[in-house]
């Protein structure tokens, strides 16, 4: 199954890539979509197998494929590690990727190179799957660079555009800077652990908790060095502050690419890496602190920039960067499962937002500047509604997915009860306000107000075709439900029944289990029914009326996707049903390995059950647990600031449209700073790019030509030719150089005599006559 889940995109890529001409665009689209959809189904099956399977012996396994490198102690194999963490990632990757594949059929319908595009998407999917299923650091690095390559190819997909090529190149090189750290981290891991296989590394990292490493001339705490080097890789790939400059530029790629690679999957690879290395990071508290600070600053800075941008895709890009910051500070406070939770929900709603934005761009004849939009919500109501869902999820409004995960992240930061944790919380709250603000700024600028586009563009505006809307509906379902459904599993406590669909059971009372399981089934059923009833209430015929009342409208949109919702809930029901069945099996076979709470309460749909050993947290660092008992105001503040942000955006962009200009005028310097993205690009350009090129020029012209050649061959030529002229003029060709070389040789021999130990000189002297003769013979 795991082979199917990982390699079908590769097969699809190879077919579409090599035989693209023969099978045509249609063929390529079919093959790649089929490949990824097969992979998606396979990974869902794996999800059931691994996460919802309570057979303790059969949950995580590694499939060895073949040897990659075998050099002394350094042995690396191609392998697929299937455990909770990789399965969650596989599901996210494959589902989002399948949506994006299908969406691309519609979005790229006017492009002449459809087949190539689809092939690249599949290549990306494969590389990403190799990354998350790696059982050693080097295979992870393979996937890591592989997704970088796919990203490079896709950003520069429109390769006639200068800006696209520049952005692609920048993305690759900036990522390489991060990879520089990652590569060193892999080497350091090998030196300390004697292996780069996860199995060995995670077995007992505690034994290296006090090991020192001699690095860059100093002795450092080994695990901290390793973790920081790995983190450097994550900073590059996940666009954290410092190495983030490539991400906004990456928006040069077609929008489906932005959704898949630069929002949902590739950029979360860094989060995955650190979550994967949680057993090691737990013993490197200083590294965790650095991660927290970077994450918090990224969340904040990106949000400030997001508020000032006009390109709709760039706004979402900065929002992505900001949300990644959330994930990182969650990791930093040891709330790995919260980070993964936010990763998962974010994948859905951000992909939805991007693809929605793509629909807008598609409808507006490739216009991306929000200043040229406005007044189009009536023309594309479905896209509009879907954007609303995405925005609500992003702003963290209940009951949308983002609410659960973002709150969890913030609560965990608070619960860390440390200076950096509190710092992250404050930064996170500030960013949450800005997030809500810029999201609604985007919504209002894009869809409301007076139309600012040309008449020609306005007359062309049309709702996207079904092939584009369907994937959006799938993602919207995720953006609505993923938070509520998976809250318990990802971050829910095993000790309290606080997850919405948690199943509490008393180990001592068999009836209770069944009762609770049934109860849960009913819950799900009633939810299903709720949707059914809402379907009965036909949506108002006049869509415009419905939109007056936002909440109603969203519901209507959801109704349109009832089929998907139903399917999802049914799938969920199965999941729950299966879980209940398995629980029963466990109890009957009296397996004691199930997490047992002191009180004798075990909640099945809890993070312990969900993650098992895939994520390791030291008990004293367990902020996710502590997050469940933070003060009420800590829990509610994010929602409050989110609502404030939305309100602020309404004020500034709907009711009192003069406000933005006034604010900009008053806070001119700050706005300049934000608007120019804190001047990272020009500074980097001056410090690194220009310096490198200048150095290259100096090395070449002065170093190579003047110094080395000047004193070397050219100089020799000059000297020797004048020398030769002085001596005689009958020598032609290169004979005089021979002479010169012989002289140099003579000098060396003489110096050898001078420096040689005495006895050797004697030996040489004895043999020298014979030697010279022999030399002549040769």
């Amino acid at each position: 199954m795991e082979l199917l889940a990982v390699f079908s995109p590769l097969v699809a890529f190879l077919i579409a890539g090599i035989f693209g001409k023969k099978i045509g665009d249609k063929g390529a689209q079919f093959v790649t979509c089929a490949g990824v959809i097969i992979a998606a189904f396979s990974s869902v099956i794996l999800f059931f197998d691994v996460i919802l399977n309570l057979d303790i012996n059969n949950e995580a396994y590694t499939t060895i494929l073949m040897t990659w490198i075998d050099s002394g102690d350094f042995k690396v194999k191609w392998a697929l590690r299937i455990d909770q963490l990789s399965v969650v990632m596989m599901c996210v990757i494959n589902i989002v990727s399948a949506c994006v594949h299908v969406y691309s059929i519609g979005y790229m319908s006017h492009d002449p190179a459809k087949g190539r595009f689809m092939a690249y998407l599949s290549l990306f999917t494969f590389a990403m799957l190799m990354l998350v299923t790696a059982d050693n650091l080097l295979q992870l690095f393979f996937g890591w660079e592989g997704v970088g390559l796919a990203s490079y190819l896709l950003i520069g997909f429109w390769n006639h555009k200068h800006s696209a090529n520049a952005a692609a190149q920048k993305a690759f090189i900036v990522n390489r800077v991060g990879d520089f750290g990652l590569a060193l981290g892999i080497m350091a891991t090998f030196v300390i652990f004697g292996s780069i296989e996860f199995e060995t590394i995670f077995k007992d990292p505690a034994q290296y908790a006090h090991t020192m490493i001699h690095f860059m001339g100093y002795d450092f705490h080994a695990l901290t060095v390793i973790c920081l080097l790995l983190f450097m890789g994550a900073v590059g790939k996940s666009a954290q502050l410092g190495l983030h400059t490539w991400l906004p530029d990456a928006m040069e790629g077609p929008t489906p690419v932005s959704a898949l690679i630069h929002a949902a999957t590739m950029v979360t690879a860094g989060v995955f890496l650190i979550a994967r290395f949680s057993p090691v990071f737990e013993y490197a508290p200083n590294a965790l602190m650095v991660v927290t600070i970077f994450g918090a600053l990224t969340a904040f800075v990106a949000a400030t920039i997001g508020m000032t941008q006009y390109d709709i895709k760039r706004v979402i890009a900065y929002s992505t960067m900001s949300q990644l910051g959330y994930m990182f500070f969650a990791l930093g406070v040891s709330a790995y499962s919260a980070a993964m939770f936010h990763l998962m929900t974010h994948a859905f709603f951000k992909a939805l937002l991007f693809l929605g934005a793509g629909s807008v761009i598609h409808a507006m004849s490739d216009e991306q500047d929000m200043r040229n939009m406005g007044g189009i919500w009536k023309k594309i109501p479905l896209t509009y509604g879907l954007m609303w869902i995405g925005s609500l999820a992003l702003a963290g409004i209940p009951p949308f997915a983002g609410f659960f995960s973002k709150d969890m992240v913030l609560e965990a930061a608070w619960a860390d009860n440390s200076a950096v944790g509190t710092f992250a919380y404050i930064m996170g709250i500030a960013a949450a306000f800005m997030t809500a603000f810029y999201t609604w700024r985007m919504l209002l600028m894009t869809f409301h107000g007076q139309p600012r586009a040309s008449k020609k563009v306005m007359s062309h505006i049309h709702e996207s075709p079904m092939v584009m809307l369907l994937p959006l509906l799938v993602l919207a379902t995720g953006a609505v439900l993923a938070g509520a459904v998976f809250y318990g599993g990802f971050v829910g406590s095993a000790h309290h029944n606080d997850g919405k669909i948690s199943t509490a059971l008393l180990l001592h009372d068999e009836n209770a289990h069944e009762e609770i399981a049934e109860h849960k089934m009913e819950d799900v059923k009633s939810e299903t029914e709720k949707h059914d009833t809402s379907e009965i209430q036909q949506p108002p015929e006049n869509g415009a009326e419905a939109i007056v009342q936002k909440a109603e409208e969203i519901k209507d949109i959801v109704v349109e996707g009832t089929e998907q919702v139903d399917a999802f809930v049914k799938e969920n029901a199965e999941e729950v049903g299966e879980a209940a069945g398995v629980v029963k099996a466990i109890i009957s076979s009296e397996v004691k390995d199930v997490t047992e709470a002191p009180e004798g309460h075990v909640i099945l749909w809890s993070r312990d059950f969900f993650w098992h050993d895939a994520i390791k947290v030291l008990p004293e660092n367990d902020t996710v647990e502590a997050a469940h008992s933070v003060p009420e105001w800590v829990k509610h503040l994010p929602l409050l600031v989110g609502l404030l942000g939305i309100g602020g955006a309404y004020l500034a962009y709907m009711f009192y449209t003069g406000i933005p200009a006034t604010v900009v005028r008053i806070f001119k310097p700050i706005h300049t700073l934000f608007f120019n993205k804190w001047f990272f690009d020009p500074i980097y350009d001056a410090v690194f790019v220009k310096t490198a090129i200048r150095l290259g020029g100096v090395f070449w012209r002065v170093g190579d030509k003047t110094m080395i050649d000047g004193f070397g061959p050219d100089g020799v030529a000059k000297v020797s030719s004048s020398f030769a002229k002085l001596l005689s003029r009958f020598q032609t060709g290169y004979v005089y150089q021979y002479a010169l070389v012989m002289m140099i040789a003579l000098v060396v021999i003489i110096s050898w005599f001078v420096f040689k130990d005495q006895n050797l000189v004697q030996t040489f002297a004895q043999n020298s006559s014979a030697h010279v003769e022999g030399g002549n013979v040769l």
Partner: protein
Amino acid sequence: MMPPILSIMIFLPLICAAMIATVRGEKGDEVLVAKNVKHLAFFGSLFVVAFSLFLYANFDPANPGFQFTEKYSWFKTAGLNYHLGVDGISIYFVLLSAFLTPICILASWNSVKTRVKEYMIAFMVLESFMIGTFSALDGILFYVFFEGVLIPMFLIIGIWGGPRRVYASYKFFLYTLLGSVLMLIALLTLYVQEGTSDIPELMDRHIDIGLQKWLWVAFFASFAVKMPMWPVHTWLPDAHVEAPTAGSVILAGVLLKMGGYGFLRFSLPIMPDASIYFAPFVMWLSVIAIIYTSLVALVQEDMKKLIAYSSVAHMGFVTLGIFTFTQQGIEGAIFQMISHGVISAALFLCVGVVYDRLHTREIGRYGGLVKNMPKYAVVFMIFMLGSVGLPGTSGFVGEFLSLLGAFQADTIIAAFATTGVVLGAAYMLVLYRRVIFGPQGNKDAASMKDLTMMEKAIFLPLVLLVFYMGIYSPVITNVLNAPVQNMIADMNVSKEALPHNEATMEKGDHHG
């Protein structure tokens, strides 16, 4: 009893060359003569490939010693022997030489029009000497082949080269000759001191540390020039720029490996203490080479020059890896040499493809080739990525293993050297972008035809090799494990035997 297969592989091309020399035709029949000559050369070199495969098939990877050995007395009075043999370290170099020659002949098929006969003779002689270099087990014999290679190469650049060929070949000659003379002196000294020039015998001798250092320096002068290492690298860009495509292919593919091979064959086993003594020096030179030449490559306007400088940087990883004296470092270095042999050869062929069409190597004259040459774009990209060291291509394995070795020896050096992966990506991507992507600025460039069947046939095996070695590296390292382990074990012995142990490797580990 095995047939003397190494001798066959050395003499077959020479016989072929002799046959080519006898091909004559009526006046005005030059075309026919050229055709016959090309066919002769091509099939001759294919025979060598067949023999090399036979050699490979019968090679025992578990045996760390020399195999297929042949030993005949050469100069009885002087005790010199014609001694051949291959071990795990050299066998892939023999294979590489055998494989690249037919590719070179194909690559010259249409582009060489003058003096075809002499050209092919030069290549046949070149092949013979290359194989001889990598299979010689006698110091003097090695020297003959090692220097003999220069002669056909010198002619190829000097006769079929570009406009500044005289300057380039002069520079090439001057540099390498300087090293050669010193090496000859060192070899003679060894011969005088130890009474033999037989390499396996010399490996068992313990030479006085003082003498070792001198010998080491002399050998180093020769090998460093051949590598080439910074700062004696400036002959390479000029030689490449002026050489015809096939000349560049052999130069980058095989000739550059002779230096690294020399280190492994002479410096480490015969002068182990001196090697350890000089290791930091070599490693720092390597790091300088990596960073310096990568930066220089970044500002090049000539495609060949850029790739030539990138070769110097890649060879920096080789010398770095060798002088870490770790299993990973040395295996990585050898892997890097083989991989670079394929990738850089292919890159020069890529340049050749467009040079044949537009007769310029200036990067600025191209652009937007992906439109009219999509297949070429794909091929070029594969080798570009191999050069960048993308995991999954052969370029990655060698680079990473060398760096891993370096990290164990000295983390500072490793960290500096690893910046090469960033710079390497920079110059290659810049090159690729300017040539392949962007708008089509030049009409002539925009009307160039995509790859011909012949070109595809040339590239296909190279593409497959790049991926095969990149995904399943034991194909190379299997044969390396035993001899490299042996070599390191011998070096450790000598390190312990060293009274004033100037151990240069600061192990960066410390479990606890």
